[in-house]
């Protein structure tokens, strides 16, 4: 038993439970301190995660749980995402009647689910960690229970999420039937093989279930409604964390457990990637709601990241890791601004951002930078991520013409996305506001979290080397047979 390896996840879970207990003895006016404590605790765990070196993979629970470079990379990413999401929650929860501590605890539980997922090496751990995440998100999405859109988003996420879980479990059952094992590794070497029909059908169902997490076509229907309806910190966590967890699992399943099947299904995966890019970008164009726009764009970004999977090699996986980190910075910054810049109950309409640069130059600059990074304009991090992903696809096009089409679709999507991202920037800086509105006070915690995201966007864009090396190291841990 190497239970010590699971310390970070255990610590996050304990932090969540401790928060709930402490909440009982905390007077109402001091609830904010609990949130600060949670942020501090999570940051401490993030720092502690650097005690683990990215050496040879280590296993716990009889091989169910693996701690390798990739798991560690994802865990640090998710802890970082959690810190920013908590900062957003602290700010946002002022508009709840009660429940700051519960909201923070739920975020911590979701983060711990994501971290377990990053280490899953067994279908059981995969399922349990995904469910820990998903069930927590049902509550997080519908947390503003006095606001109808939040509840409706919750029900939508609940029903589609449960449906995806059903697909996932049924798929796992079939894979188990075909291989006789619940581990990711079969008896004969690392991969599961694609011998039987059961395994193939089962893996397709698993793909559908995980596809729901990352929001790829055709499992994307929830994303716009849920992003729009959910409280902004929840949406931030969904976009940055839940998507990352989905990709962690997808990388493990497709590249480690079932590489033969992935190779066989490559045309389908390419189709899915292209369709996600086109669908997300085209549907985002007419949107007026900022969060809804980010929902559609998240589908497109899932499509971009799938480009890293279809090439089926380590460089592609490294590109996904890099992209996820950059995407997390940008999208967290965007949702933080969405949490701060709108009044309680006000829909997050893009035209209402007019005059933001006068109400708060900091928030305006942050949202603008985040949009430009999402659009993939250098020297911001989004550009380099897209560059890495496209590099793999263009190089693969020398072997197979169909990759050329995929690269063309991806580039068309990127060019299209420019249109709506710049619409947001223009609204911030150059639309005349309908009415003069008071300046926005940004609390110190939220300001610092936003600052961290912005530093990430700019620094990893101008000096991509350190993050790229970390991503390459992490992807090197993937046991691609």
């Amino acid at each position: 038993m190497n239970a010590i390896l699971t310390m970070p996840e255990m610590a996050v879970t304990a932090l969540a439970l401790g928060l709930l207990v402490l909440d009982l003895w905390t007077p109402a006016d001091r609830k904010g301190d609990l949130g600060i404590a949670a942020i501090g605790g999570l940051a401490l765990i993030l720092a502690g995660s650097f005690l683990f070196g990215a050496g040879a993979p280590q296993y716990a629970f009889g091989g169910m749980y693996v701690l390798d470079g990739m798991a560690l990379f994802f865990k640090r990413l998710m802890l970082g995402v959690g810190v920013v999401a908590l900062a957003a929650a602290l700010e946002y929860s002022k508009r709840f009647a009660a429940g700051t501590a519960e909201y923070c605890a739920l975020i911590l539980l979701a983060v711990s689910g994501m971290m377990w997922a990053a280490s899953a090496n067994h279908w059981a751990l995969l399922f349990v960690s995904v469910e820990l995440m998903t069930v927590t998100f049902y509550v997080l999405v519908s947390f503003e229970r006095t606001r109808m859109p939040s509840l409706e988003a919750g029900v939508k996420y609940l029903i589609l999420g449960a449906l995806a879980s059903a697909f996932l479990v049924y798929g796992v059952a079939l894979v188990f039937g075909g291989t006789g094992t619940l581990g990711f590794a079969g008896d004969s070497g690392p991969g599961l093989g694609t011998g039987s029909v059961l395994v193939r059908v089962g893996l397709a169902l698993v793909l559908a279930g995980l596809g729901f997490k990352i929001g790829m076509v055709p499992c994307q229907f929830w994303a716009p409604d849920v992003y729009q309806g959910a409280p902004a910190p929840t949406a931030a966590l969904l976009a940055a964390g839940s998507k990352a967890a989905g990709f962690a699992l997808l990388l493990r399943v497709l590249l480690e457990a079932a590489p033969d099947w992935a190779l066989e299904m490559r045309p389908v995966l390419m189709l899915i990637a292209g369709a996600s890019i086109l669908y997300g970008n085209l549907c985002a164009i007419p949107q007026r709601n900022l969060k809804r726009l980010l929902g559609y764009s998240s589908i497109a970004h899932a499509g971009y990241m799938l480009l890293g999977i279809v090439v089926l090699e380590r460089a592609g996986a490294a590109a996904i890791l890099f992209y996820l980190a950059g995407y997390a910075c940008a999208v967290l910054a965007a949702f933080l601004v969405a949490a701060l810049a709108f009044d309680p109950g006000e829909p997050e309409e893009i035209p209402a951002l007019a005059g933001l640069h006068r109400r708060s130059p900091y928030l305006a600059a942050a949202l603008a930078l985040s949009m430009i990074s999402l659009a993939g304009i250098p020297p911001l991090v989004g550009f380099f991520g897209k560059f890495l992903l496209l590099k793999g696809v263009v190089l693969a096009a020398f072997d197979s013409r169909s990759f050329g089409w995929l690269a063309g679709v991806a580039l068309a999507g990127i060019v299209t996305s420019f249109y709506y991202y710049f619409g947001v920037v223009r609204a911030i800086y150059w639309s005349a506001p309908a009415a003069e509105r008071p300046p926005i006070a940004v609390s110190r915690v939220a300001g610092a979290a936003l600052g961290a995201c912005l530093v990430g966007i700019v620094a990893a864009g101008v000096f991509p080397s350190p993050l790229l090396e970390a991503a390459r190291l992490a992807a090197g841990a993937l046991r691609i047979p």
Partner: protein
Amino acid sequence: MITAHHYLAVAAMLFGIGLAGALTRRNSILVLMSIELMLNAANLNLVAFGRQAGWEQGSQAALWVMCAIAIAAAESGVGLALILAIYRHRRSAHLDESPPLKG
């Protein structure tokens, strides 16, 4: 003689019925129940396969089924609470009455 194939067939039927229900029903409680059917179809599969795979793997599968049942219960718990919250607002548990889903 009842073989694993029979169990598989029953599970596939359950899954199909559940899926059909989840896609066609408009009452959110019925949809949740349909999804439970789908989860149970998977559980049935697992148990059947586990029996076939021998003691060690079979016990793993059985443990998994326990986990899955517990998780499904948690899911329904949260789901029903949510539906209740919506019902308080709207006096209806029908999904149709949500504003049309914008494309």
